[in-house]
């Protein structure tokens, strides 16, 4: 009796649902067609691609591109029959009442609105309104619109990006959905550039000082490289988006090229004037943490958590060499560590790199290529120390940021310490104690000779690098004034 009762209730409910849906359809006859890119792809991305994507393909089915979406899974059932939602396995599975069949499996069902969207889209012919049916759904989505930043910061947000404005009187800080600009002496908030990506990982001023390059995104799902017009304070254009957060961006010396690296392992170079992509490369097997142009514009270097630094020909993107000095196992300087920072010197062909290891490593890309040799002399290559020079940092934890200028290198570490070294002698000039928190970002201004770092707890520390005297320490949080000297 109970069973019958339940079945009856269920059938009755189904009738109600169907009637409601039917009424809904009637009520808005003038509706335009469902857009796959704007309306269906976001649902698929959030609810389906986790199990049916490029990493996992349960049931032999993938849905991370339109092409794959339309391809039947291992069961062979017709996944999507255009114009026939009732005969489409995909539709049947999202409305199934059988728990073991209903998708998303062991998760909440799609909402009634989402189900009806999918139904309508199939009924209207399951059309694709994007550019490339083989492109990942993520890439179809285009740049996101971002919300305003919080008026008042409830908690500290780690400072992952920091850059002196030309002249060194102001410093730009990566905030939450914004970049903030602060007076270096007073720690007073000067400007807020809003509606930017959630996290800001890199800031670079253009050579003319009129615009600012910003890289960031949402970890695990979205990366963005965009430009801020400093006269309006608005996002002036999005150069590119990435499937994971963009972690680094830089101009070349001339200011006519831009390089960016992201957590999806990609490195891309753009024409700074037109915004066109010049080349894109994905040779790293892990996050690209830092990118830099050589002073002469010949090379691009990218550091990665995969323990290598890759060097490319800047014009073409062809891989020039791989610097393996951070994953040495034989020789004097042993250890294997992710690389978090790479910087070319402004006045020499040398590259500086550091990360989880104990040293800042200084090397020449052309020598690195000669030392890389071929696979045959592997052991010999590992045994010799090569031409790399090593500066022992004395840090107990990771080095996250480097800046090389004026014959000096500054390294910021998770110890909360910044160290200043002389490039010629490799000697330590000075050590600055910020706080106890991790330092993620650093910049040096050649005019004012100031050095600034940003920390996990949202505090900015600025020093005079000539005297070593502290200039300002402030919490870069709009709405919470905590200036101290």
């Amino acid at each position, binding site marked *: 009796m*109970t069973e019958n*009762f*339940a079945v009856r209730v269920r059938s009755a409910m189904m009738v109600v649902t169907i009637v409601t849906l039917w009424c809904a359809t009637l009520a808005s006859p003038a509706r335009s067609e469902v857009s796959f890119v704007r309306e269906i792809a976001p649902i698929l991305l*959030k609810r389906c*691609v*986790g*199990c049916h*994507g490029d*990493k*996992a393909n349960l049931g032999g089915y993938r849905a991370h591109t339109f092409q794959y979406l339309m391809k039947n899974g291992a069961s062979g059932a017709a996944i999507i029959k255009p114009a026939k939602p009732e005969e489409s396995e995909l539709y049947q599975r999202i409305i199934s009442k059988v728990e073991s069949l209903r998708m*998303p*499996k*062991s*998760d*909440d069902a799609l909402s009634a609105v989402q189900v009806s969207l999918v139904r309508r889209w199939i009924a209207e012919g399951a059309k694709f309104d994007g550019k490339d049916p083989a492109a990942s759904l993520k890439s179809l989505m285009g740049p996101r619109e971002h919300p305003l930043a*919080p008026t008042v*910061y*409830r*908690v*500290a*947000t*780690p400072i*992952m990006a920091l850059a002196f404005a030309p002249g060194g009187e102001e410093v730009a800080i990566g905030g*939450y959905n914004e970049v903030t600009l602060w007076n270096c002496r007073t720690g007073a908030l000067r400007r807020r550039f809003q509606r930017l990506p*959630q*996290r800001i*990982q890199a800031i670079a001023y253009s050579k003319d000082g009129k615009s600012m390059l910003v890289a960031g995104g*949402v*970890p*695990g*799902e979205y990366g963005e490289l965009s430009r801020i017009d400093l006269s309006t304070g608005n996002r002036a254009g999005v150069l590119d988006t990435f499937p994971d*957060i963009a*972690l680094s961006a830089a101009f070349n010396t001339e200011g006519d090229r831009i390089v960016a690296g992201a*957590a999806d392992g990609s490195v891309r170079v753009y024409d700074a004037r037109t915004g066109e992509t010049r080349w894109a490369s994905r040779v790293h097997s*892990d*996050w690209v*943490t830092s990118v830099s142009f050589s002073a002469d514009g010949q090379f691009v270097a990218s550091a990665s*958590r995969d323990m290598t630094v890759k060097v490319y020909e800047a014009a073409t993107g062809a891989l020039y060499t791989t610097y393996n000095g951070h994953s040495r196992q034989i020789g004097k300087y042993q250890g294997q560590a992710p690389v978090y920072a790479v910087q070319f010197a402004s006045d020499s062909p040398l590259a500086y790199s550091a990360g989880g290891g104990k040293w800042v490593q200084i090397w020449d890309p052309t020598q690195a290529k000669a030392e890389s040799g071929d696979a045959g002399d592997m052991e010999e290559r590992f045994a010799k120390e090569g031409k790399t020079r090593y500066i022992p940092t004395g840090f107990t934890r990771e080095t996250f940021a480097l800046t090389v200028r004026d014959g000096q290198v500054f390294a910021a570490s*998770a110890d909360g310490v910044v160290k200043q070294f002389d490039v010629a002698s490799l000697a330590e000039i000075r050590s600055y104690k910020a706080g106890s928190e*991790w330092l*993620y970002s650093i910049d040096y201004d050649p005019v004012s000779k100031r050095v600034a770092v940003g920390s*996990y707890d949202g505090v900015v520390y600025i020093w005079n690098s000539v005297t070593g005297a502290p200039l300002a320490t402030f919490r870069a949080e709009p709405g919470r004034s905590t200036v101290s000297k």
Partner: protein
Amino acid sequence: MRFCHFIWGIVTLTLCQGMLEAAPVAKPLNVSPREIKLDSQRSYRQLVVTGESPQGPYDLTRNATYRVDNPKVATVKDGRIIPTGDGATIVEVSAEGKTAKIPVTVANFKKPDPVRFKFETLATLTKQGCATGSCHGSPHGKGGFSLSLFGYDPNIDRISLTRDGFNRRVNVMDPAESLMLKKPLLEIPHVGGKRLRKTDASYKILKQWIYDGASVDLPKVECTKIVLTPGENRVLQEPRIKQQLSVLAYYSDGSVRDITAIATYDTSSANVVAVDMDGLVTGRSRGQAAISVRYLDKLQSLHFTVVENVPGFVWKSPAENNAVDTLVNAKLKQLQYLPSETCRDEEFLRRVSLDLTGMLPSPENTRQFLQDRSPNKRARLVDYLLETEEYARFQAMKLGDLMRITPGRLRDGRAEGFANWIVDSFRKNRPYDAFVRDILTATGDTTETPAANYFLAIPSMEERTEMTSQIFMGTRVECAKCHNHPFENWTQRDYYSIAAVFARIGENRGEIKLAGQGESLLPTTKEVMAPWGAKDIRQPVTADRRIGFSQWLTNPANPYFARVAVNRMWAALMGRGIVEPVDDFRSSNPPSNDPLLNMLANEFVKSGYDRKRILRLICNSQTYQRSSKTNRFNQTDDSLFSHARVRLLTAEQIQDAIGVATRVLGPPSTLNPELERIQKEIDARIASRDANYAGWLAEKEKAISSAKPKSQEERTKLTERITELSNIPTVQRSPKDAAELHDLLEQEVLSIPAGKRTERHRKTLYNLYLNGDADYVSLVKKQDGLANRMQYATQRPYPEESRFTSTFGQPARQTACTCERQNAPTLLQALELLNGGTVSKMTQDAVSRYATFDDKRMVEELYLSGFCRFPTSQESSAALSYLQSAEASVKGSSERRIDLAWSIINSPEFLFQH
């Protein structure tokens, strides 16, 4: 469905009220706890409501109705009291006509109540499965995100979650945007799949923790224990198959918290009992299983027995011989299994002989036993077998497997010495506790103190820790070497504390001695660990730390020692331990019959650790003597011992059984006359050689005196070469090396002037003289082989390295784990039996060994020796007609005899113990 429940609820309620009115002085309802004080907004308390029946207590938590006087103070959901505001109220709990009034007070409801990283955040990461070894809980955590295993190192987790990966994983501005939530919610692709729901208590905790700033305080406070309600094992009797658990954590600062919602629950067998995220246990099918509750490094288990009513089952009160049967039958009756019939005499004879001695009885003994009509003949047989030399040797062989006795590891007779020492302990039935103390505290020259070879065979402190724990405590502590044990309460501290016991054992040229120094350091803090079993770390350096440990180990109150020992004996006889595997005792791996294990352990302790007494007790039980034939009501039983287990003979048993069946191996008792005969020959040989000794010596002295005296350098070289050659194990030494060594030793002794030679030198010289005689050497070798029973695989001091036995899973004695012996049948085994060298040689030899028997007698003898029974008339005539077939055939009569022996050996009745 829900509607129906609702009606049922009303009916129950009405009934209850009716009963209340009728019986106003009903006993109060059993509710735990009796009083509740909540002192923060996020605190709660899980009630457990218990009913009583003649079959025992049962859970009413989800059946009870709850009424709160003041809903502004608290609400109740599934028996969980949740605060809603400051104040005091009463929660009235009613079930089955009884009620209880639980006073509840709530304080500090408005005070901030931040999530505690160490005690809440980390617990939820374990609960959701993030911090398991196969996901993120390892240094090579998946996707570059690594946590410490089950949160054992909060510092690693603090860094991974907040600072590492460019603060990628948490978003304090907008907690719901955090990667560490979106991934397990599967809002973005996660290789680990869906691990979290927004309705989970863990989600709320993690989100709150992030909202509060993902802050990390690592207080010095520790969780000292967790306490479960109910506190004792439970029976889930159909239809009452649910049990709500409640878990309290006690902290070193004196605070106590309900952690029911964040504890991790696991079942040892999901088919038997399931457990959900809230600690609600549900019986699934008949059987027994453990539910383990983990919270940080603490683990507690409860054992559940699920009873279903089996249609048509009637308990028939089978006969009981002793306490073993009483306890086994009680369990069978409870779980509704009907034991098998008693096995036949021939089955018993074969089974008990193989189990106790490793060998098949001789046909003569079989005849005698089968013809014996006395009622207590089975008990007398057990007594007889326990007194045999075969018993002592076979048991010692099994122990030798665990103690890694091999001539490669224990050289120059040490392996034999140690093995024979163990044999002797079985022979004399040395109390097991004393035997183990002898081993664990042995020091001295291992050629003179055989027991000390235990330490020589396992050279490192870590291995000594792990093997000692595994052999004598049935505990696999090796996990705790690097981190707290995932399935047990063994911590890293415990591991290094046991290691400290062995930190001061030194070894020098085969001599085990107290080193006087050496410490065991905790790797994380470099803290010097106090040896396990000792109260004070400041022992004098001369003290033997092993004494304290072995006293702790062999103390009657030790929770492992006796239980592990009797369980090993039980497993050897029954084919499965009461705890299985036998060396994996932990609360999450419950005994299939706990009272039985306790009884055996108590008997063992009470008897003064008398091994034979326990073996006798088991062998004389009906339980041991059950048939392997199952009935309708015990077919599915695999762990409660309602029937005998059919199992393949072990490698050694098969080899010897084939030997016995083919008459290649005589009964070991025939060895004694042979040994006596050889001894006489040796004596005669020595006597004849003695006559020439003086002449030989004089000649040698003359030769050496005429030779140039050796320089210091030459002498050093000589000694070095001698050491080098002696270091080659005897069995591996080539004849050339042996001859060289003999010669060099002779030179060494002879170079000492006769006047300066000690008694030992003279003895060495004499032995060298005797050993120079090939006849003498071969006689001694033969004698050694016979005395050590080298031709009997089940009786040897160490395994023969043969393809046959290794194919059948004989362990190479590399580990202390019984699992090193492979039980799984393989294709190679089948091939070995069909046409392998051992089988083919032995069956061929059978022809000559059976030469004096006529066909009929041969058939009978083959059946008696191979199967321990007479052939049936049908079998007999079939075999005879094959042997005597007049048909034209290429095979002669001896080939036919080979075939017959072969077919006996290849029959399941022969290869299996049943």
